[in-house]
C-alpha cells in the first residue's frame, strides 16, 4: 500500500498511473483537479474566452492522447501546463501577427528594468476591494503586459512553477526568465500602485 498523501495535497501520480492503465475516471479526476488553473492560464495568455476554452479542451485531449509518452520525469501538472502554453501561444500567433507575440530572446535586449512610481501602499491593500473588483484589477494588470512578460509572470508567480520549470516550458534560458520576471513584477507594481497606494499620501486625493 502506498502511504496516504498528506491531507489537502493532491497525489497526482497515483491518478496518472491508473489513467495510463485505461482508468478514465482517474483521468477525469486529473482534469477536475487542474481545469480551473489551465483555463485561467489559457485566458491570461490568449486574452479571449473562446480561445481559452479551445486551449483547455485541446490540452486535455492531447494529454490523454499522449499519456503513454508521459514518463513521469516531471509532474503531470507541469506537463499539462507545457501543453497548454504551447496551444495558447499558437492561438495567439494565429490571431496576431505583430512581433510583440514573439517570445524569443531578442526581446530582452536594450531594456533596463525601470521604476517610476514611488508611493507607499497600505498594509493588506487588497482588502479595500471586493473579490470581484480585485480579480478585475489584477486581470487587467496582467493583460496589459506584453505576452513575453505576461507568460513568464503567470507561470512563475500565478501558477507557481520554478524558474527552471518556466524556462523549460517556454524554451527560454534561465537568465531570460529571470530578467522578464523582474520586469513583469516591476511593471505590475507600477500598474497596481494607483489602486493600492496609501490614501493620505495622494496629493490629488482632495481635488
Amino acid at each position, binding site marked *: 500500500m502506498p502511504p496516504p498523501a498528506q491531507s489537502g495535497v493532491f497525489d497526482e501520480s497515483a491518478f496518472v498511473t491508473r489513467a495510463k492503465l485505461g482508468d*478514465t475516471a482517474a483521468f477525469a479526476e486529473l482534469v477536475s483537479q487542474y481545469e480551473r488553473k489551465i483555463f485561467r492560464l489559457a485566458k491570461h495568455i490568449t486574452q479571449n474566452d473562446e480561445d481559452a476554452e479551445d486551449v483547455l479542451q485541446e490540452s486535455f485531449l492531447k494529454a490523454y492522447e499522449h499519456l503513454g509518452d508521459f514518463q513521469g520525469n516531471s509532474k503531470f501538472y507541469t506537463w499539462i501546463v507545457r501543453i497548454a502554453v504551447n496551444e495558447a501561444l499558437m492561438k495567439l500567433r494565429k490571431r496576431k501577427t505583430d512581433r510583440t507575440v514573439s517570445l524569443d530572446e531578442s526581446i530582452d535586449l536594450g531594456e533596463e528594468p525601470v521604476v517610476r512610481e514611488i508611493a507607499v501602499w497600505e498594509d493588506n491593500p487588497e482588502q479595500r476591494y471586493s473579490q470581484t473588483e480585485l480579480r478585475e484589477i489584477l486581470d487587467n494588470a496582467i493583460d496589459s503586459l506584453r505576452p513575453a512578460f505576461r507568460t513568464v509572470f503567470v507561470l512563475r*508567480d500565478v501558477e507557481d512553477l520554478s524558474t527552471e520549470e518556466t524556462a523549460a516550458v517556454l524554451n527560454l534560458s534561465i537568465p531570460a526568465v529571470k530578467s522578464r520576471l523582474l520586469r513583469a513584477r516591476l511593471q505590475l*507594481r507600477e500598474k497596481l*500602485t494607483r489602486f493600492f497606494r496609501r490614501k493620505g499620501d495622494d496629493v490629488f486625493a482632495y481635488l
Partner: protein
Amino acid sequence: MLTCKDFLNELNEYLDETGDPEIRRRVQEHIEECPNCWVVFDTTKKTLHIFKGLEPQEIPRDVHERLMAALQRKCAAHPQRV
C-alpha cells in the same frame, strides 16, 4: 554598499528568498538606508502576495461540460492501450 541599480537587479532573488546570503544581507542593508528602494521592495512584495493569494475561479459550468463531453468522445474512440 549596493547602488539602487544593484538593488533592483537583486530584487527577484531577495523576494524569492533565494540566492547568496551575503548579497541578501547587502540588499537588506540597502533597503534599510534607502527609503525609495524600500518602497519598491515593499510594494513588489505586496504585489506578489496579492497575486499568489488569488484562487482560480470556478470555470463556467457549460465550459466544464463541453470539456467532459469532448473527453468522453475521445476516450470512447481511443481507449488507452494497456
